[in-house]
């Protein structure tokens, strides 16, 4: 029999068997970062006009690898690995059955990843990571992507089982905040990925196998974006978990409010899904009323986003003042800037300010025409995903990996990690800045280098494309550095104990009301909103379907 005290102590360290499962995910994530990053470097070089790919490799093949590996594989694997560790740390060690389910999910995902990657490498699937019809890939690519999604469901179920078990053992108590957040993210993922699963299984696979020869492009894109927007929140919420729960502990402060954190996560669940049309604002065939409605719902995410901003500033300020910071901004200087676990995610947070502002512009219905399909969009999500999210994940990796491997982050590595983040910011400011500006000048995204027959407008883009290449090359140096640090933490760093930091809630915070964890209420509202936003337009899309399209291989 273990006493409660012993049990509490057990919880502090992630069990070794759970560590292995989490680490397996993290390995794949960083392999994806290396290959995807290399492709990113090649892309910026090609687009500068000064470099052509050797051996007949196509630009779109490289771009597909970059998008799939970084947008889909790196993110999903890192997130699931992080969440497994987080559940194990805050809700207790997985049971053997739960862990086995986790491993099954991992191998299903990995089989899918390998299958899809092989088809891309064979140049049978250069359809980019959104795999829009009527571009048609080899069926094995779609089956691979479907397996990635199904595998993530299986791993997600293991996490949910852990949560259900915790709730049963602790009736009437709010679950640990981090576990709660993991489950919100998993719930969102399960609900949204249903859309892409339907698209792939019922539309793309039969069509790529030749069982049917035409595909309804409008429906497939609508199903994709029903998934595609929550996808970006699936990336972002784990970063928010780090900000809300981990960072306060690292800076020696407290979580500003448990209730506020839970409320903002639930609001993200509600307002992340019924909004996919904001990616289809220029799409013919969707009634403008429903686009407008989804634009309104999109703008609602401003509320939890500003709640988050407020909560972050508040916990920083409270801590900084505790340390003797005076005046309006004296507290800011008192923060632990020399600690990579804080500074690296902090840079990510700062990047979210321009990123969020850009997002609001993108979603402003008619104003979307200004930026639609221009490289502004690429500049935008290299701030959100490739800076805010990724730097937060790097910052988390610097304690998570050594915690899982039983090693420590040395002083030199800590310093290198801060340098890495600075290099990343410099490279990204140049690359993303150039992308934003030249996007407003009309330069398209997802295009190989072209002079467009010497057109005046396209000539004006070239200096910015060179700037992109400069920024992108600096970023690639950043990728090499982070991989060096990660390799060190995996295999070479000195053995020792590293803390898995979990913040405590401020004693001034209100008690968390239980309705915040009443899934019946939240899931009902969530599904009601989805039905409200999608039922009529989908019926409309199906009843007035455009003529189906045969498949194209344009690469």
């Amino acid at each position, binding site marked *: 029999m273990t006493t409660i005290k012993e049990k509490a102590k057990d919880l502090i360290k992630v069990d070794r068997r759970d560590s292995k499962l989490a680490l397996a995910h993290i390995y794949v994530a960083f392999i994806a970062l290396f290959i995807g990053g290399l492709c990113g470097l090649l892309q910026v070089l090609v687009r500068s006009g000064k470099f052509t790919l050797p051996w007949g490799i196509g630009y779109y093949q490289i771009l597909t690898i970059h998008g799939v590996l970084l947008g889909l594989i790196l993110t999903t694997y890192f997130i699931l690995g992080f969440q497994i560790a987080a559940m194990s740390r805050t809700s207790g060690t997985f049971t053997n059955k739960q862990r086995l389910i986790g491993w099954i999910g991992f191998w299903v995902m990995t089989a899918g990843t390998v299958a899809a990657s092989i088809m891309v490498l064979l140049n049978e699937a250069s359809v980019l990571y959104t795999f829009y019809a009527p571009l048609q890939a080899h069926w094995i690519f779609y089956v691979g992507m479907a397996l990635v999604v199904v595998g993530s469901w299986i791993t997600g179920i293991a996490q949910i089982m852990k949560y259900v078990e915790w709730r049963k053992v602790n009736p009437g108590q709010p679950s640990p905040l981090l576990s709660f957040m993991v489950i919100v993210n998993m719930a969102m993922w399960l609900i949204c990925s249903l859309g892409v699963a339907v698209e792939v299984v019922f539309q793309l696979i039969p069509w790529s196998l030749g069982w049917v020869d035409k595909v309804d492009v409008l429906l497939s894109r609508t199903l994709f974006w029903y998934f595609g927007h929550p996808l970006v929140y699936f990336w972002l919420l784990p970063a928010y978990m780090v900000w809300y729960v981990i960072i306060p502990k690292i800076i020696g402060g407290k979580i500003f409010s448990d209730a506020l954190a839970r409320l903002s996560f639930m609001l993200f669940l509600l307002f992340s899904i019924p909004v996919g049309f904001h990616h289809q604002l220029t799409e013919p065939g969707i009634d403008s009323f429903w686009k407008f409605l989804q634009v309104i719902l999109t703008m609602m995410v401003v509320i939890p986003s500003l709640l988050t901003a407020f909560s972050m*500033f508040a916990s920083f300020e409270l801590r900084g003042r505790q340390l003797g910071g005076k005046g309006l901004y004296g507290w800011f200087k008192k923060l632990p800037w020399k600690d990579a676990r804080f500074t690296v995610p902090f840079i990510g947070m700062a990047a979210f*300010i*321009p990123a*969020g*502002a850009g997002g609001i512009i993108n979603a*402003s219905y*008619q104003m979307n*025409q*200004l930026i639609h399909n221009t490289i502004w969009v690429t500049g935008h999500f290299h701030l959100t995903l490739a800076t805010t999210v990724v730097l937060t994940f790097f910052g988390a990796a610097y304690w998570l990996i050594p915690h899982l491997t039983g090693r420590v982050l040395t002083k030199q590595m800590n310093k290198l990690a801060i340098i890495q983040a600075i290099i990343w910011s410099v490279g990204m400011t140049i690359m993303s800045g150039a992308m934003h500006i030249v996007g407003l000048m009309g330069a398209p995204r997802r295009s190989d280098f072209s002079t467009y027959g010497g057109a005046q407008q396209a000539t004006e883009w070239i200096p910015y494309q060179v700037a992109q290449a400069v920024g992108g090359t600096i970023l690639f140096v950043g990728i090499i550095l982070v991989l060096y640090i990660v390799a060190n933490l995996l295999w070479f760093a000195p053995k020792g104990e590293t803390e898995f930091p979990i913040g405590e809630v401020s004693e001034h915070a209100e008690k968390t009301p239980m309705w915040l964890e009443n899934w019946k209420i939240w899931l009902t509202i969530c599904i009601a909103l989805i039905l409200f936003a999608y039922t009529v337009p989908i019926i409309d899309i199906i009843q007035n379907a455009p003529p189906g399209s045969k498949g194209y291989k344009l690469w």
Partner: protein
Amino acid sequence: MSKKSEKDSDLKGTLYSVGFVGLFILISWFMAFYLFVDRF
């Protein structure tokens, strides 16, 4: 300074910071809006 007024000014920096974020968003949005009106 009395204890009370110290407590009042506790989260002043936060208030200004969030205000700054809001302002930044508004300014960027209006700049884009200006471009939009100019072009379309």
